[in-house]
């Protein structure tokens, strides 16, 4: 059934007011941005996620988590998106947890993640476009371990992360999914240099340089040369999660805009009375409902281990990205001049949408993937 269960609704009922109040734009995004926070989010606030049991949302109950699925993570992320709430939830509690699960490294990192003390992220992109199969970073065997050399970019929260999951090549050639290995690299590792890049939405990503970074054999998540499996788990979760967050961004921007149409007067009437805006608003509403359905479907299929999950993950990421872009563009346009000001929040939605749409693959990347998965 593609309606939320009673338990999922309860979760939504508790997360929605929390994010609207504690995670509000003024209290979090603007506050950290305007005070020049180097992390881009509040560490105390991240601990509040832990107190609510959200940090361990995907971690099995046997390992101290809630043992829930991506549908539940999506419920949280839609509220995160709606409030532009900055936190390491998506990279840590969703993508990294999925990569680590079932591996020997899980025992080590899950307690800190659950406690809201550990921040984790993925380092995949090596160029300006996401393309994990093209990973070229070299991981050379040395003694009992490996030595990593190369560069990564768009490592979200890479500057504050305690642990970075790095995709590198132990075999095969760039473009092949075989021969990749996923490594755990810890903060402060010798040879790891981290350049913080503040992005348009004030979030922090990092450009990493790895110069002869040595890791032990047990830093490998899963199998050597078999990194595609944990990487796919992480990416499926990260992409489905980003899709849900994008739906939240679209919903937040559009709700703000529809409200404005009912308040702003020009030519002696409310601008929402103009049919030209009514129809655009109605079209946008429908597109957001469709994107929400796609994100829910992807999460449900992933949770069920269905064969069609990968296809729908790409459908959801592409659709949510496109729709969210429409929402923020219409949002700024319908707000008119005030929408261009830093003082107004609508522009913040536009910036967040741009970053999230690019993260884990743009709508174009995912549309192309839909074509590939469909055999054309």
């Amino acid at each position, binding site marked *: 059934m*593609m309606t939320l269960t009673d338990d999922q609704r309860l979760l939504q009922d508790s997360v929605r007011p929390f994010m609207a109040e504690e995670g509000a734009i003024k209290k979090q995004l603007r506050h950290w941005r305007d005070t020049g926070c180097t992390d881009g989010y509040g560490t105390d606030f991240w601990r509040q996620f832990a107190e609510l049991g959200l940090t361990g949302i995907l971690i099995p109950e046997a390992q101290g988590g809630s043992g829930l699925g991506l549908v539940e993570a999506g419920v949280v992320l839609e509220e995160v998106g709606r409030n532009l709430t900055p936190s390491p939830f998506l990279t840590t509690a969703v993508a990294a947890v999925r990569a680590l699960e079932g591996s020997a490294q899980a025992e080590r990192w899950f307690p800190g993640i659950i406690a809201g003390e550990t921040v984790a992220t993925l380092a995949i992109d090596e160029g300006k476009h996401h393309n994990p199969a093209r990973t070229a970073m070299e991981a050379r065997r040395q003694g009992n371990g490996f030595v990593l050399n190369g560069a990564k970019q768009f490592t979200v929260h890479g500057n504050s992360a305690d642990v970075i999951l790095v995709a590198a090549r132990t075999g095969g050639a760039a473009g092949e999914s075989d021969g990749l290995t996923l490594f755990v690299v810890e903060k402060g590792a010798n040879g790891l240099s981290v350049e913080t890049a503040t992005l348009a939405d004030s979030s922090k990503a990092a450009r990493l340089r790895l110069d002869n970074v040595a890791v032990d054999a047990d830093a490998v998540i899963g199998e050597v040369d078999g990194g595609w499996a944990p990487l796919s788990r992480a990416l499926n979760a990260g992409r489905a999660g980003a899709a849900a967050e994008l739906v939240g961004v679209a919903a937040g921007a559009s709700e703000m805009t529809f409200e404005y149409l009912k308040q702003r007067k020009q030519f002696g009437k409310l601008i929402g009375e103009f049919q030209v805006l*009514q129809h655009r608003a109605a079209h946008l509403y429908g597109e957001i409902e469709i994107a929400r359905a796609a994100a829910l479907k992807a999460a449900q299929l992933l949770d069920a281990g269905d064969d069609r999950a990968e296809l729908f993950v790409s459908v959801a990421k592409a659709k949510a990205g496109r729709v969210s872009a429409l929402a923020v563009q219409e949002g700024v346009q319908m707000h008119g001049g005030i929408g261009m000001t830093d003082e107004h929040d609508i522009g913040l939605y536009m910036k967040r949408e741009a970053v999230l749409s690019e993260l884990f693959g743009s709508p174009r990347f995912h549309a192309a993937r839909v074509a590939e998965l469909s055999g054309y």
Partner: protein
Amino acid sequence: MADLDSFRSETRAWLEANCPPEMRTPMRSEKDLCWGGRNFEFQSEAQKRWLDVMASKGWTVPDWPKEYGGGGLSPAESKVLKEEMRALGCRPPLTSFGISMLGPALLKYGNEEQKKRFLTEIARGEIRWCQGYSEPGAGSDLAGLQTKAEDQGDHYLVNGQKVWTSYADQADWIFCLVRTSSESKHGGISFLLFDMESPGVSTKPILLISGNSPFCETFFDDVKVPKDQLVGEVNKGWDVAKYLLGHEREMISGMGLGSGIGTGASGVMLGPVAKPEDPLLRAEIAAFDVDALAFAAMSERFIDQLKAGEAHPALPSMMKYAGTELNKRRNELVMAAGGSDALEWDSERSKGGKSARDWLRSKANSIEGGTSEIQLGIVAKHILRLPGA
């Protein structure tokens, strides 16, 4: 859950035993649909048998109550039946406006006698219905309709004209909006049912740009309609009409699903077209597939929301708008992928110009059942509550 699992396995076994193999092959065209009715010519013995076995089980209308010929299935069971039919490739045993439009309206507004009689006939595929809504002067402004029904004591006398009556020339009965009062626009409309064989009813097919005539003009000249064939209260027909329109829009939105997932050599949702060599065409098809698959997810969610009573009453308008715009886009892409092959109008090779005719027919999708602009207006007014909408 365990009950549902056993229902699933029983259903699968029953379908395997009862669905004729010929009814498990993909439909080649709309002509393979079974519409039922007094004059319906079955395409094959199998088609007739399939209708009969499904009707006797109540599964032509699985979620209608058993006393009216339905299967009495719960929403979850209906969904299982649908999934199992899809898995086995079973064709729908019966397609009709009685099922998709009139039935739901009668279930809500009909009296007991009407429900017993008409719903049972619909479920068995005995009577084929058509819809008398639009008039030459009442298209988007439907409530401006002028077809008159005068109270003559024991019957109504109906005079006027309808237009865009789908398959009126093949239908047995009509559900028809008539004006019973001129004092109020919306409050002067009534909802009548009558036999298309009644004296004074005539039809004339309308030739469309597709070269086909799925629609008719329908004329009423002193047609006598017994009073017990009025549904709901006199002058309250607009409520019935709107409720039925919701179901019509729900049905039409289904065309956004096209031929379903995984049927095409390329373009999951596009249908069988050759693998595109042109990278720009491939990109357009991929973008279309993203939208179409997302819409498929929405359709599933929409049905679940309807059954759970969580759907906004105006949501069918959103679905109708999105589904029909998508279907038009699909047809544009089929034409683009088909190139000059797709322009052939009557050759054997082109299956009688199927691509071109379907493409042209699809242009009506965003007009019939309320234009896209009408649907957007409804969403703006009832869901977004924009001022003055």
